[in-house]
């Protein structure tokens, strides 16, 4: 069954709940619907919206986290993205940046291209992360658990992965309006210091 039984929330609902708990932390958001929906829900200068380079969101976040050890760095990622850049789970697990939180919206499909199935229905990505060396990993199915676990991860040393099972619904969000060079400049200024 897709999505996993008991999964009720959409990625946009999960994003809204997470963004409510964040303030000025750098957030690297993967390409596809996650960037578009986050941009629609709350457009903050601390958001780095990706439109290409699928699979690279956690690598970019890792670069920020290593360069800014005193800032907690978040990445919003998808199951297809994690599968494409799975080696980065190992790099994060080996380097163990304490200030790194990896949120994965797992809807078991490539949403932007027409909901073709991924293989995350049979490969539990949070277990891969745990085996690779992530310190805290949690898999949640509803809003209450996601708020509880994300609050907890914000207080803990990482690296941490919060895998949120979401349904296939995509918000009517449109494309991110900022030009890519402007996203870079705005993000750099917002995370200075």
């Amino acid at each position, binding site marked *: 069954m897709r999505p996993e039984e008991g999964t009720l929330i959409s990625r946009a609902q999960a994003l809204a709940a997470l963004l409510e708990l964040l303030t000025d932390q*750098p957030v*690297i958001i993967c390409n596809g619907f996650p960037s578009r929906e986050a941009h629609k829900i709350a457009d903050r200068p601390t958001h*780095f919206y*990706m*439109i*290409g*380079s*699928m*699979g*690279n969101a956690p*690598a*970019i*976040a*890792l*670069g*920020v*986290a*290593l*360069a*800014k050890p005193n800032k907690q760095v978040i990445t919003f990622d998808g199951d297809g993205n994690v599968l494409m*850049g799975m*080696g*980065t789970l*190992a*790099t994060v697990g080996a*380097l163990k940046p304490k200030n790194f939180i990896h949120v994965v919206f797992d809807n078991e499909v490539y949403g932007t291209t027409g909901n073709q199935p991924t293989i995350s229905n049979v490969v539990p990505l949070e277990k891969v992360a745990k085996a690779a060396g992530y310190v805290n990993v949690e898999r949640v199915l509803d809003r209450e658990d996601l708020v509880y676990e994300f609050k907890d991860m914000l207080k803990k040393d990482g690296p941490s992965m919060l895998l949120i099972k979401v349904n296939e619904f995509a918000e009517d969000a449109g494309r991110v309006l900022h030009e*890519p*060079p402007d*996203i*870079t400049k705005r*993000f*750099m200024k917002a*995370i*200075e210091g």
Partner: protein
Amino acid sequence: MIESDAFVQALQDMGVDFFTGVPDSILGGIIAELMVRRIYTPAVREDEAVGMAAGAYMAGKIPAVLMQNSGLGTSLNTLISLNMIYRQPCILIVSWRGQGGKDAPEHLVMGEVMPHFLDTMKIPHRTLTESTAVEDFKWVAETFMKQRIPVALVITKGVVKGLHP
């Protein structure tokens, strides 16, 4: 032949303060020196290294990514759909495997096409030589600052001292 420590020092003097990449034998001496100085963050794939460098750049660092030229193929999409369109520069230290058709078979195709490949991708590049090293490094720094895209310094076999001279 350029000593590895002089090569690394030249990059540090330029302000480069974030080093990542995937090893190659031609780059062995440089990576060993970076590890001695405790300033090297190893990556598992070249596109990951390029992504990490992009993050480090946005967090205020000047990044360099080491790779053999096969890694240009692996990181192609990241270089064009991240660095190029978002204007995120990095210094690519690329070893030229397969140059002149003298190498293991897997290096021959990329070895032959690499300069055209970099031209096609619009990545500015220059091949380091011992006699032009000062100008080569200066050109890399200026191109990085001016164009805000990846710039490649190509390293041929024997120009920088390796692990096994």
